[in-house]
């Protein structure tokens, strides 16, 4: 690809120099540099704030560094409770979502087109209806059935988002698997269930892992709905973050942000291998 048309001088004027390999390399470098600044520096600012002992404007970096904010945060029982709660809810949400969306994804992948149109539209509604409006209506429903301010109430609310997402990714993953493989297993005498578990599921695993990972992160991230149906007893980490931001304790909020980001970043590194696999691409692109 790098052997561009630079050898043909005629082409250069049309391309604003884009045909020239050196020019293109420059542009990519600029883009990469710009993105590093745009993505990285805001996060770096947070890290700086979390260690700031003394930071008077207009100093670019703090004039004094300290770890006492970390101590303060880690000694606060509310923070520890929120962390435990978040990391209990996220796996439960992910597991339940996987249980109901993997069969649905499989069914979608093998269904006829007319059914899929209707279902596709039905599954788009949760995304089209403004979440926060939905949560407010849901809170009223929760009051009537006694799910308000309960663990399961929060879990079900988180599942609204993850369910749709996971169904779509698994649909695409199953669709990318050739049905002939399954038929071959059936011809060899395997039951439909056996064919699914022995042939289809292992091939679909990377896609399912990515979808589960996204569900986990989405659950960790969910704040607005949890705020509505989970207060005052079920305060997850991002909900606590809302209060910290509005109370303007900048270093404390910064420390909390850093702590809240670490598990996500660990997951990112753990999942890097799968994220570059073709299944993610399939998951997002070919629904």
């Amino acid at each position, binding site marked *: 690809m790098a052997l561009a048309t630079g050898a043909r001088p005629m082409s250069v004027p049309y391309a604003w120099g884009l045909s020239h390999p050196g020019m293109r390399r420059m542009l990519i470098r600029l883009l990469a540099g710009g993105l590093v600044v745009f993505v990285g520096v805001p996060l770096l600012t947070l890290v700086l704030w979390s260690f700031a002992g003394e930071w008077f404007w207009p100093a670019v970096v703090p004039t004094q560094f300290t770890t006492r904010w970390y101590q303060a945060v880690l000694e606060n029982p509310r923070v520890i409770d929120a962390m435990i709660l978040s990391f209990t809810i996220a796996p439960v949400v992910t597991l339940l979502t996987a249980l109901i969306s993997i069969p649905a994804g499989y069914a979608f992948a093998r269904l006829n087109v007319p059914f899929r149109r209707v279902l596709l539209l039905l599954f788009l509604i949760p995304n089209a*209806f403004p979440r926060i409006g939905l949560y407010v209506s849901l809170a009223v429903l929760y009051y009537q059935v006694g799910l308000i301010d309960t663990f399961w109430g929060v879990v079900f609310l988180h599942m609204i988002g993850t369910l749709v997402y996971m169904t779509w990714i698994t649909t695409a993953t199953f669709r990318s698997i050739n049905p002939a493989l399954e038929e071959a297993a059936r011809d060899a005498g395997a039951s439909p269930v056996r064919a699914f578990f022995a042939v289809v599921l292992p091939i679909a695993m990377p896609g399912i892992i990515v979808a589960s990972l996204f569900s986990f992160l989405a659950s960790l991230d969910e704040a607005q709905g949890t705020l509505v149906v989970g207060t005052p007893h079920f305060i997850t980490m991002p909900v606590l973050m809302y209060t910290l931001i509005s109370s303007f304790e900048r270093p404390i909020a910064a420390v909390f942000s850093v702590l809240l980001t670490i598990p996500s970043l660990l997951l990112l590194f753990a999942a890097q291998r799968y994220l570059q696999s073709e299944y993610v691409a399939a998951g997002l692109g070919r629904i």
Partner: protein
Amino acid sequence: MMVLPSLAFLTVFVFIPAITAALESLRVRARDNLGNYSYSFGVQNYINAITDPVVRSDIVFTIVISIVCVALVSVLSYAIALALRFGRGPAVRVLTRVYIIPLFIPSVIASYAMITFLANHGFVDSMLQQLGLPDGTFPRIVFDWKGIVITQVWLSLPFMTVLLTSVLQEISDTLVESARDVGATSWAIFRQIVLPLSLPGAAIGVTFIFLHVLGGFTVPYLLGPNAPQMLGVSMVAYMVNYYDRENASTQAMIIFLLSLVAAVYYVRQQFKREVR
């Protein structure tokens, strides 16, 4: 049969609350001289929303912000995706590692990072101070529409880029190379092969980001201006501050109807792809 559990779940937790909201938006509340409320059925709430100058400016503001965000994310992500698909070298490896990061940052934290980064007397401001910019000349970005747009672009970047990269991956090297062999310039290849082939696939990303920004709450709540507000924020204000379920539901329905336009567009694009 296998779809039933998820359909049942969606019915209870999505469709029923959504229908409740739709009915509520059609309930008109009137107050007589004694302070008693009476309710009737009609579209008066919608008429009020459209004729009220404040709500109307909120609606326009929401639509404009959503379109601006989608446009910016599309252009930026397309550039990154092109570089990832057709570029080589260390810069591309840096891009691969960096663009995905916002996907793993909770939106509350991203918003907070942007506040510390872009606020007046924030990080960028003090950087510019050191370079000699007079105090007070830094534009207002946080608590303004610019803050919403920048943060939403930041957050949506990975999703759109992953999507576009996968779409570009589906365009075969053979096709591109054969075009090159017959003398097409890079620009011509882009205009006549890459762009048209990638547009239908990009539709899903455009729709998703549009819906996401349109109905968003966290980012505009933490970073947006007080007036005009995005509908998500104004809706919560009606709900929580004024206990006005009817008008809050009406605003939810307005966002929903706007979203439907995008959703219908998306579903039609998908049908076209399936027919092919």
